[in-house]
């Protein structure tokens, strides 16, 4: 009898606990908070002033795509959605092309990661595998369009390789010392790569290498992954005490060859921008 009472008390308490945890950490953030905050779209006319002089758009100058006859509303809705996506992408490209920094274009339709400068593709690499959060894939298209309307600016980055590394050398006192210091240059060994970039508007981009890492690389990679997992756990625990969890952090993970991952990370400026095409 005692056991029975104990069983029911414990089961009810744990059920209540489970419901509380589920509501606080999962249901509330997923169902009530927007994981894709809308971008503040810059005034396009301001950008136009920067780029050229003949800025007035001729209203009669319709493109072929725009003037095609639209048979039914479903088709026109899809067409509009496509056009809006293209418009966002081009606008972002134009904004970044007016600046002198390298930026990253992630084309998840054609599985390409492109490093661009002034609209010129400098380096292109094939994405072997890409994982996109359901919070991006399955969120309503309205929010997605607004979210991707502007380039993403980097907020924080963690990587297993240094962005810039310098070899320090003390200047020789005389020619004898200088001759002793002369060494045959060698090709530097590429370190294993995992880059976690946190952008504004909640986006987390993870760039990982396709190759199997060595023991040292594996340790560095797991250290970074562990750090992010710990952060998530502490956010969940905080949410339980405050009954409020931040919106879900959507992420995109791309797997590319090690050499390409190194090039992308090393070539991007300290505060790079990202354009998403999906």
């Amino acid at each position: 009898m005692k056991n029975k009472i104990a069983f029911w008390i414990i089961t009810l308490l744990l059920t209540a606990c489970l419901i509380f945890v589920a509501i606080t950490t999962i249901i509330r953030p997923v169902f009530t908070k927007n994981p894709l905050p809308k971008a503040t779209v810059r005034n396009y006319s301001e950008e136009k002033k920067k780029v050229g002089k003949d800025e007035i758009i001729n209203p009669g100058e319709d493109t072929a795509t725009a003037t095609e006859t639209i048979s039914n509303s479903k088709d026109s809705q899809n067409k509009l959605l496509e056009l809006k996506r293209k418009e966002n992408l081009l606008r972002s490209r134009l904004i970044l092309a007016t600046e002198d920094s390298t930026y990253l274009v992630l084309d998840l339709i054609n599985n390409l990661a492109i490093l661009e400068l002034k609209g010129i593709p400098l380096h292109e690499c094939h994405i072997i595998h890409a994982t996109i959060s359901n919070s991006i894939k399955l969120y309503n298209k309205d929010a997605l369009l607004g979210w991707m309307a502007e380039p993403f600016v980097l907020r924080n980055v963690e990587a297993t390789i240094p962005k810039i590394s310098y070899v320090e050398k003390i200047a020789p006192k005389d020619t004898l010392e200088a001759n002793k210091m002369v060494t045959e240059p060698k090709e530097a060994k590429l370190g294993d790569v995992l880059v976690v970039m946190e952008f504004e508007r909640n986006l987390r981009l993870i760039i990982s290498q396709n190759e199997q890492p060595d023991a040292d690389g594996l340790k560095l990679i797991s250290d970074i992954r562990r750090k992010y997992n710990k952060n998530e756990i502490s956010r969940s625990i905080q949410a339980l005490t405050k009954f409020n969890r931040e919106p879900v952090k959507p992420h995109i993970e791309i797997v590319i060859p090690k050499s390409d991952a190194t090039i992308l990370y090393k070539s991007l400026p300290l505060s790079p921008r990202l354009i998403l095409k999906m």
Partner: protein
Amino acid sequence: MEIEEKKSRPFLSILIWIIPVFLFCLSVMMILYTPVFQDSAFKVKFLFAGKSLFEGKSPEAIENMVLRSGRTISSIETKLEKLKPVKPYIVVNTTENRFSLRNVDGDTVRTGVCSTGKNELLIAGNKRIIFKTPKGIFTVRNKQQNRPWVKPDWAFIEDGLPIPSARSAERIDYSTLGDYAMEIGNGYMIHGTLYQRFLGLPVTHGCVRLGDKDLEVVYNTLSKGSKVYIY
């Protein structure tokens, strides 16, 4: 029959405790793997979603939006087209020490190895000199054949030699830059090298060194004002 029931009870009573244990484990899992659970929850949310982006808009309004969007796109495309280089250009990859020479349409006409900055910090007393190739967009400012190199101070510091006066003949070197040199600003150049075996390695003081044949093609293709993209 009763004996059998009594025997099965302890087994049942142990088995029933699996339920609270499961509830406890699930709660802990939810805390430990919150992102995974959240991501799955979005699938459920999606089932109940279905809000259309253009809900409540008339077909005419949508068609107008299509037209407007089309006009904006063509306008932006024109602007982007204007930003493209009007002359052939070169792209230098400092991580892999490779270059690609492209024509105005962006097609690669030649690729090859090069040498870029060795990323070295030379400390000479209070002076700190960094040998690295700058990244970004540059313009060919000047082209010259058999250009002599006027050695800067660091060339003497690095060799442990006393620094001569600014106009000293010791500063002039006729062999280092090779047959052709193209200035890209701030003292940086694209030039040849005596050390062909080091091509493909980061060994320079910041300039971009090319092999003899590549240099000749690049020199003949690029003109004053051509763009140089370094990343």
